[in-house]
């Protein structure tokens, strides 16, 4: 895969010798010697470097994006015409379940985790995350989870209960294939990645900021990622409980959702949505963060109302906990609960609105440069707003009872997810690509990429508003001419438009893949500061060296990098360039730290994570296998806990001697 190719160091070669830092193994517990390679496949397999892991998250997520997208295209092909014959009912049900699962859990979440991994340490001026090995473990859990979930395709059929997997339809009788079992166990494993990642990143942000970087000087991306990690920290255990209950019912005969025994199916709905609603903010806030980085850079202005954006982010995170039952307005909660949740849901539009308003005002009075990254960000403002506003129409509970489970909902969440989350991520790709790979994505192709995606996305999901308000329900493997209506609102016409739109969209995304391929082959190096950026991650070489910064910068401003480059003219109040990026970097190099201890690679995270799918498969097929998996896990934990995080003589000797350490801890 092109994007995990590690490119050579950037043109601005820092004064430090380019050779790999000398890391020698220590004898540790275990059968294998401690891995040391810093190039080659082993350096990826055993790495604990947050940047490598970020790229691994990204590449894997990109793969799953294509998988989930192809599933979506199959859905659209099936629905292009009445009585579609592309998929049968059973396959169709698996298709939309896996489409959503893949997109949500295996694309947007890990892609955001990838960006967070790569850029949070850089943005706060750290050399790595707080627990590098746990970081690696998280990645392998995500991969293992994704594999387990998808394994079901080859072992008797994938999960078929819809992504929210309502009980009792997900029970052993109503969903007899093993698909749901793979789904629950796979998500459980992937959940470990999110939980450990959350703890890791929160500690990193709290504890490993460069000197002077107070919380209110942190870049907004880092802030919103932190909010997301808190959401994950508290939401993952809820889905964990739900998944355990379902596994216990399906595999061990527990009765949690067995109505005959007196169970209440609404229990699952509550548990799922207590997780599920915070989850949708987990999906969107990273993109909000990216946009909040990109807009100021390309408006040449600081983010308008920085504290408002930060606090509204926290407010969204908080209020997001009190609205879950808006997914259950038709479930029969009773009027009091419905009324309370309805109004609470409306409240969440306020902090979200604050963001939209501040972004628009950031552009206001700026000097707008329309790079591809900027285009995607501006696209997000408009498209997300459309989705958010349809969300507000759902929050009016009585009208939601007309809308719920129709394509109008499908329109809502694709606008916020595709027009929001995905556009934000694409903005991030174009913005940070030169940082990650030292090469620029092609801007011309990027423009085509953007326009095809905008048009394709509106063609695909715009008509779904009409389809839904005309009463077409979700999750129907076929629709019938008999209920299509005539004239402008004809369902047949708009279904066809949506399907064609999805092909346009596919082409748009294909352009992105082509762009990656072209860029990977190109030999042109990116300039050091291609966008005239503002934050710390740009204050190092592209791609950054293993230890990120030669010397840890001292921070005095929000937008530190920008303020090192520019000063305000006291008379005209315009900004005057006082230093180039090259000069600033050279300065940092001159003061390079000595004795940088980077955490050493380790194979225990991989071994530990490998034990989990063995246990999962064991639960489904044979308990002895599960026990073997358990032993692997125990062995790995034992080895891990005896292994120091930094191998004994891994000291990296820099040219000067004012010591600074990574600050990474055991873990």
């Amino acid at each position, binding site marked *: 895969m092109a994007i995990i190719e590690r490119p050579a160091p950037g043109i601005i070669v820092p004064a430090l010798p380019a050779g790999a830092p000398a890391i020698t193994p220590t004898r540790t517990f275990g059968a294998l010697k401690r891995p040391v390679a810093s190039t080659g496949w082993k350096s990826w397999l055993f790495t604990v470097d947050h940047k490598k892991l970020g790229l691994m998250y990204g590449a894997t997520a990109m793969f799953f994006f294509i998988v989930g997208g192809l599933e979506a295209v199959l859905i659209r092909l099936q629905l292009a015409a009445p009585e579609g014959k592309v998929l049968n*009912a059973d396959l169709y049900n698996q298709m939309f379940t896996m489409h959503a699962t893949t997109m949500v859990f295996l694309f947007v979440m890990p892609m955001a985790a990838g960006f967070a991994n790569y850029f949070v340490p850089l943005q706060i001026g750290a050399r790595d995350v707080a627990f590098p090995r746990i970081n690696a473990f998280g990645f392998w859990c995500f991969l293992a989870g994704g594999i387990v979930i998808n394994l079901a395709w080859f072992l008797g059929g994938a999960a078929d*209960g819809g992504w929210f997997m*309502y009980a*009792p339809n997900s029970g*052993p009788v*109503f969903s*007899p294939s093993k698909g749901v079992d793979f789904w629950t166990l796979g998500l459980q494993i992937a959940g470990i990645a999110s939980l450990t990642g959350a703890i890791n990143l929160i500690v990193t942000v709290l504890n490993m900021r460069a000197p002077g970087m107070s919380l209110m000087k942190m870049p907004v991306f880092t802030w919103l990622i932190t909010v997301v990690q808190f959401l994950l920290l508290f939401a993952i255990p809820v889905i964990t409980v739900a998944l355990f209950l379902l596994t216990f019912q399906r595999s061990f005969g527990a009765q949690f959702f067995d109505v005959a025994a*007196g169970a209440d*199916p609404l229990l699952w709905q509550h548990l799922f949505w207590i997780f599920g609603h915070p989850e949708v903010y987990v999906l969107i806030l990273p993109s909000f963060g990216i946009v909040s980085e990109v807009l100021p850079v390309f408006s040449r*202005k600081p983010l*308008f*109302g920085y*504290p*408002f954006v930060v606090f509204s982010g926290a407010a969204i995170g908080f209020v997001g906990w009190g609205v879950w039952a808006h997914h259950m307005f*038709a*479930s*029969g909660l009773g*009027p009091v609960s419905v*009324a309370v949740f*309805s*109004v609470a849901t*409306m*409240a969440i539009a*306020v902090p979200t609105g604050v963001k*939209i*308003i*501040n972004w*628009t005002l950031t552009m206001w*009075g*700026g000097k*707008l440069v*329309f790079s591809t990254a900027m285009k995607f960000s*501006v696209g997000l*403002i408009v498209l997300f*707003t459309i989705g958010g*506003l349809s969300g*507000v*129409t759902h929050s009016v*509970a*009585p*009208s939601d*009872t*007309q*809308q*719920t*489970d129709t394509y109008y909902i499908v329109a809502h969440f694709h606008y916020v997810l595709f027009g929001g989350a995905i556009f934000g991520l694409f903005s991030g790709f174009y913005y940070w690509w030169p940082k990650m790979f030292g090469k620029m994505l092609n801007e011309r192709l990027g423009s085509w990429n953007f326009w095809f995606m905008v048009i394709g996305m509106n063609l695909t999901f715009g008509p779904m508003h009409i389809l839904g308000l*005309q*009463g077409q329900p*979700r999750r129907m*493997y*076929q629709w019938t001419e008999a*209920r299509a*209506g005539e*004239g*402008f*609102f*004809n369902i047949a016409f708009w279904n066809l438009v949506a399907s064609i739109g999805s092909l346009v969209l596919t082409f748009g995304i294909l352009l992105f893949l082509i762009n990656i391929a072209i860029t990977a082959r190109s030999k042109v190096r990116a300039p050091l500061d291609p966008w005239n950026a503002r934050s710390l991650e740009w204050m190092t070489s592209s791609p950054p060296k293993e230890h990120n910064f030669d010397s840890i910068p001292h921070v005095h401003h929000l937008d530190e990098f920008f303020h090192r480059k*520019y000063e*305000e003219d006291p008379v005209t109040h315009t*900004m005057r360039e006082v230093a180039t990026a090259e000069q600033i970097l050279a300065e940092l190099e001159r003061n390079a730290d000595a004795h940088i201890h980077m955490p050493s690679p380790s194979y225990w995270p991989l071994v530990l994570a490998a034990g989990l799918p063995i246990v999962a498969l064991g639960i489904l097929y044979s308990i002895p296998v599960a026990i073997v998996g358990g032993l692997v896990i125990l062995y790995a934990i034992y080895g891990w806990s005896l292994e120091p995080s930094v191998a004994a003589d891994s000291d990296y000797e820099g040219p000067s001697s004012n010591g600074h350490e990574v600050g990474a801890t055991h873990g």
Partner: protein
Amino acid sequence: MNHRRLSLLRTGSTLSVTMMKSRRLALRALAATGAAAFLGSCATNAPQDTWQPKGPNAKMIDDLQQPVFAVAGIIGVIVAAAVGFAIWRYKDRGQPIPEQTHGKPALEITLTVIPALILAVVGVFTFRVIFDLARTDDTQLVINVTGQQWWWEYDYPVQNEWGITQPIISSGQLVMPVGTKVLLRETSRDVIHSYWIPALNGKRDAVPGRVHTLRLEADAPGIYAGQCTEFCGLSHANMRMEAVALSDEDFAKWVAGQQAAYQSPAEGTLAKEGESVFLNQCVRCHQVEGLQRADGTLAIAAPDENVWSGAAPNLTKLMSRNTFAGAMFDLLRDACRDDVWRADSAEFGAKYLAGVDETCLNVNDLRAWLRNAPEVKPMYANPALLADTNGKYRGMPNLGLSESDIDKLVAYLLTLK
């Protein structure tokens, strides 16, 4: 339950209602112009259009949602316009890097408070409608509705004021009197389903182990289409339903017809042979009230022993309905069907009550159903899967009937009226 009780409770809050109305009118006008400009003219919309209420409950929702859509539309336009303007006005034309202003708190707070106020207003009206729609104290007719994979059963409990002196059990089409406050009491026999007739009200889930209520009331006679909207497994897409509103007199006729005694086909007819095939094959699952075995005992179906959900449609008056198998198939040929659906209010009742006769019967679909039901409607009725369900079917199995048996059965089913 009072027949035709006038609801006086509503007049209590005339004042606020008028206030609400005038505001609503203004907003509606806005919405209407917006919609008209954007959407063009109105042709026959899909039968499940959610913006065409045909009864007071749906109307209440619509009155609430139209202004909300209008407000949302306006905000959307404002945001798009502001962004558009900024793009056009502040594009990089070589201007100097602007002053690094960090925001204007007063502006921020204003722009935060305005949306909050708008939503507070929306919230108040929402509250009212939620509680109005939850009322059950003005009910005039109760119908029990049970969802199962993948059809709906209607059970009219005894209500003498409506002439219902013995329970009526039916499926597929919900028959109800016009202008009457009907209360559905919903539940399910297996997984969660959702009952939804968009022209009459929003959805309410039918959850196993729970009973939920849903108000329905239709303004005019006619057929109102609906669809199960909670994902309920393989044939969720094929779980439809229709609500049929009849005038009071026609409803009384329907009730009488449903309670009419069973009439065995005359000896020697094909239908009579069909009756015995039915007794052999179908009575395992399907009840026909009054049907007797050869030995004179009443035939009692035992669907709970054969079907996982524990029920199969009651076929006593099969031919009084227009559809079958979860309203997936029409019992009427297209021409006859259109005749009923398109009939005007005055004629509709008579046409509907005529039911299905030989000339109008959609033989092809019915025969296909009897020949091999799981082939035309996806169901887990494959004997290979019975291990998971203690030998019970989910849906109707393929019974391997011969063509001549099917002839006989069709003839017999035609008599069930």
